[in-house]
């Protein structure tokens, strides 16, 4: 019997080595796999490369990992946020590398890695600082920049539900980078509210097929849901 379910977030991240490249889903706080990041913080791996849309909010999750000096480099589209003080300070102090990638190129480069595409031409970034030094090609009268796939050793994604085969469904805009990151990593770890019985997820609505997921760990229902139903929540900061 196949079971990708692991008992704890600690077990799910135990074999991550120093120097690993880790993709972390989420757009701001939505879909950020906070429990897995916290487990990684406890696990101790350092010199990490993190691929994520943002570079941490407040003092928790990814920001805490950065603050602990465990991340050598961030590949992201939007590190600067109202509450990205941890990254800001490290960056200004020259203590962290940044590869800034336009958001669509970031998503597409991750997809390319997962889909076995060796590289692609995109109009995004042509003529800008972020296209500088890259191969340029005119295609059908429009200039394009060549972009390469981004692979990872691990991907952390945050989904709503999984079954023991690793099939995943997400919730609203917390889906964001999860489905593409799951395809691009050697080992994808999904944290979910709940592991459901095989057969519970409708095959038509599985967003990430289990082939892309190596480990599943349940972290309990998100606090703005009760029994799968939205119950409201005062604000985002809590």
């Amino acid at each position, binding site marked *: 019997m196949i079971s990708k379910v692991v008992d704890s977030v600690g077990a799910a991240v135990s074999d991550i080595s120093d120097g690993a490249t880790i993709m972390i889903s989420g757009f701001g706080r939505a*879909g950020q796999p906070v429990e897995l990041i916290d487990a990684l913080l406890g696990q101790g791996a350092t010199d990490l490369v993190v691929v994520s*849309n943002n570079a941490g909010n407040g003092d928790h999750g990814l920001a805490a990992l950065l603050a602990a000096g465990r991340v050598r480099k961030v590949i992201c589209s939007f590190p600067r946020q109202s509450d990205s003080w941890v990254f800001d300070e490290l960056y200004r102090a020259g203590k962290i590398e940044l590869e800034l990638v336009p958001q669509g190129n970031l998503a597409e480069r991750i997809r390319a890695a997962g889909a076995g595409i060796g590289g692609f031409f995109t109009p*995004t970034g*042509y*003529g*800008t*600082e972020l296209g500088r030094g890259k191969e340029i090609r005119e295609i059908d009268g429009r200039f394009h920049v060549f972009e390469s796939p981004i692979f990872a050793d691990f991907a952390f994604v945050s989904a709503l539900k999984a079954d023991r085969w690793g099939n995943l469904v997400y919730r609203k805009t917390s*889906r964001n*980078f999860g489905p593409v990151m799951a395809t691009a990593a050697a080992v994808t770890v999904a944290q979910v509210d709940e592991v459901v019985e095989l057969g519970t997820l409708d095959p038509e609505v599985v967003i990430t097929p289990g082939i892309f997921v190596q480990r599943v760990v349940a972290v309990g229902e998100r606090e703005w849901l009760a029994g799968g139903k939205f119950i409201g929540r005062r604000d985002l900061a809590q």
Partner: protein
Amino acid sequence: MSSGIGRSQLAARIARDIPEGAYVNLGIGAPTLVSNFLPADSEIILHTENGMLGMGPEPEPGQVDPDLLNAGKVPVTELTGASYFHHADSFGMMRGGHLDICVLGAFQVSETGDLANWSTGAPNSIPAVGGAMDLAIGAKQVFVMTDLLTREGESKLVSKCTYPLTGLACVDRVYTDRAIFEVTPAGLCVSELFGGTTLEELEKLTGLALSIASAATPANES
């Protein structure tokens, strides 16, 4: 000298140019205001690049859903008819030219429609681009919404952008507090004047040679 119109008036003016059925992305900041002026009885489908079509307004107090944010990470709601998709699909939608209109803010727009809106290039700033470059080159029509002048009184319409570019020759129209400018092969053309502003004033404020659409003249004279 004239004073132009306020930001809400400008948002309302932009909203008038968005037809029913349009798929629209409203950029972070001032462009978001446009949604307040879309007619309630016409269906316009808002896209947010973090993976949703059919985005609705901010939720009622106590109804904030942390899984339902817009590109500015502000809580939003879901309209009837909405759909969700992942980031690569969302940006494929943008890059593939499927959005009818996007409305963006700007630091500078050049006479040829180059846009600079992601970085001032200030030495100590944290660079962050997000989806700006994808939006600038992706939508069928790119509208810019901005004050004509910076706080320091410099024109945001320029012959050539000095700030780092977001995209080349990508802007179709610039809505400012003083006038609406069309980007044409012959340069910027004023299509509407606000608050008594004259073409001469605009040329003085921008330092650019501007043309004026014949339809724009009556608005100026009235």
